[in-house]
């Protein structure tokens, strides 16, 4: 086997292994989110369960924060809020961006390209700015929707380009020549793209929306107490971070693990980095 061939055969194996790690991590996170009320020792936002800013110990594995809240319990609740909101946002990004992008690619060429151009311009604007703008025009309550809409232009562009390339492929051209209608071809593309790429697209959107939502919350435009997400927890720990590192480090670690798992599950695709 040549060196090139050997490398090309190793790379898919490595990628598959990384994807498996990513999906396994997301699975564990999903379990933790589903059982967060059971796993957490204390309900969300309950203060005074321990001394203020106590270091990690046997009683409080992640320590306590300024209000005496158990950081482990708060991190689990924060992870739950973050994942649920990111999941909703990712659904919006896929539905609005991906689906409309696929349909736009099947519109008359001029119309499709005009939409593609407009979305390309929006995709060039940092998604964080778009999300803050959308929240400002609506309400903090709609932050997941805003984050999903902010990630949608890039999803639109990617879906459009993929479906456009498919519709201009030789096999589609030949199918049309033998009477296969545009709707059958669209159905064919949606079926196979849904089967082959939905999981990857969903994981990619989840990573992108998680970053947007956490940053928005960190800046104070997102989640509001008592429903604290990881971004808001990190923001709240800023004042004490230098002398009580655990208040910010553990929520940040949870956030990093969530995003890393989603990125690994999405084949380390960097395409929708906000």
């Amino acid at each position, binding site marked *: 086997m*040549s060196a090139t061939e050997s490398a090309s055969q190793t790379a898919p194996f490595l990628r598959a292994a990384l994807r498996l790690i990513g999906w396994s991590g997301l699975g564990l996170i999903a379990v933790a989110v589903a059982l967060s009320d059971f796993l957490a020792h204390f309900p969300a936002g309950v203060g005074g369960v321990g001394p203020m800013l106590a270091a990690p110990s046997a009683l409080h594995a992640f320590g306590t924060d300024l209000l005496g809240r158990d950081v482990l319990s708060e991190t689990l609740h924060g992870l739950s809020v973050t994942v649920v909101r990111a999941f909703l946002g990712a659904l919006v990004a896929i539905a609005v961006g991906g689906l409309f992008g696929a349909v736009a690619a099947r519109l008359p060429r001029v119309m499709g390209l005009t939409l593609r151009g407009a979305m390309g311009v929006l995709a060039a604007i940092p998604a964080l700015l778009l999300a803050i703008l959308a929240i400002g025009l609506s309400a903090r309550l709609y932050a997941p929707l805003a984050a999903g809409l902010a990630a949608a232009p890039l999803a639109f562009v990617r879906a459009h380009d993929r479906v456009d390339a498919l519709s201009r492929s*030789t*096999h589609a051209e030949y199918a*049309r*020549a*033998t*009477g*296969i*209608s545009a709707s059958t071809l669209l159905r064919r593309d949606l079926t*196979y793209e849904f089967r082959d790429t939905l999981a990857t697209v969903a994981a990619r959107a989840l990573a992108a929306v998680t970053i947007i939502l956490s940053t928005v919350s960190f800046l104070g435009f997102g989640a509001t107490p008592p429903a604290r997400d990881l971004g808001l927890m990190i923001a709240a720990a800023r004042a004490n971070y230098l002398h009580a590192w655990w208040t910010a480090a553990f929520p940040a670690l949870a956030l990093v693990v969530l995003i890393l798992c989603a990125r690994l599950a999405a084949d380390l695709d960097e395409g929708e980095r906000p």
Partner: protein
Amino acid sequence: MSDTGRILEIAELSVARSGAADLDRFSLALDAGESVVVLGEAGSGKEALIRVLGGFADRTDQISGTIRFGNAEARPAAKRPRPSIRIAYLASPLAQPFVGHVGVLGQLSRVVARKLGSPLASAREELRLALERLVGAPPLAVLNEKPGTLDPVSMAWGLLACACAQTPDLMLADHPFADLGPNAVRTLLTALAAEQKRLGFALLYTTEGLQPAGRLGGRVVVIRDGKVVEEGPAARLASGHAHAYTRTLFKALPQLSLDEPRGRSAARGQPLLQVYGLDLVAGSRREGLTFELRRGASLALVGEEGSGRRELARAVLGLDHAPAGRVVFDAVDLNILSQPMTSRLRRRIAFITGADDALDPRMTLWDTVDEPLRAHLKLSGDLVAGYREAALKRVGLASHDGRRTVATLSAFDKRRLQVARAIVGAPLLAVVDEPLRGLDAFAQTIMREVLTDFRTHQGPAFLVITSDFTVAQALAEEVMVFKDKKIVERGPIVDVLRSPKEAVTRDLIAAVTLPGLSQSPPSV
């Protein structure tokens, strides 16, 4: 070069990969000026032979046996002895041997310069002289293009000139002219034979087709599953006094028949396809193409690449819009209908092509056959499965796992799958574009039979696009010969074969007439 004239001696060469033998105790001796054509199907072991001789064997190849180059000692083949002779490698232009962003001329000049150890300017001059000596080759300036814009035939000329300019002792030709069209192959092979005679190099030519076996002379080594089936001169192997496998391979030998076609009557039904004044060149003032094809009839559009036959077929299929003219299918002008109505009419058109990307690689084998049925007819699942099974059986794919995706199928399987998809559509017209391109001799024979069976049993009209008169004759009764986007000759194929009027027609017939091997029409 060896004093004794022996250039290459391979003894008991075996190549295995992952436990499976690619080549099994292969032995061959080759003298200066001698040619050996290694003939076999894809995967028969030719690739392993070239890999070892060319020095690009894989690390996982388990190699045994010895190789001796020229006068040097025989050395273990696993260590690929450094050749004491000069070896030139002649690749196929379709194997993408060039880097995309650099001009072909520059790349070829660098190869010659490195092999001869000469300055680049001098290598370029050698290349120019080599190209000038090749009868029928384009001028050097043509090669000054990047690979993406240069046609494969010109690239093949460049590669041949590059190999000859190295003044080799041994030339390894790895399917160099596969799929270039019979006329181009004939000219290239004639030029190669002339250069071999002039320079006296030994030639080892691997091929899946029969043209080189017929035109280069010398020995033909028939190889199957890594083993030599038999060897001998092409004329003997083609004569019928040969191994059963060899006879099967030689069944694909181009054979033109001067007998009147049997079974298919010239009397036919209503016109199915009518083309009026179709002009393939924008803004030209010449008279457009006009012809008609009746129901159940068959017409071959024969010509070289770029002659206009494919443009005509694309216009008929609606893939391209011709600048002027009308295409009437089943009494309806396709250009004036809305898209949905055109789609309805096109259901009765099947398209079978030699392009490997004609089918969606994501679809499964079953889905590919089912799609026309599900898209056009409201049939129950059982009926769809029944039609699918019958069609797959007809083309010999019934035993394949129907859940395999098209991407995992071989070129031969993909080609037969196209026919199965056409069969379930019950078309009135089948447009067949170079259906044998890229297939080995064995697969070509089967593919001809599959297409003939399709036509016999379902009776669609056939519009055959090819540069090979034997394919035209196997699938059609009438022919139109194209040149420069014009019809230069038309009529029943047998009449055209008996008395071709135009030089281009004579060239096309000569291209598939192998001296001493195939029956040649009296006019050629």
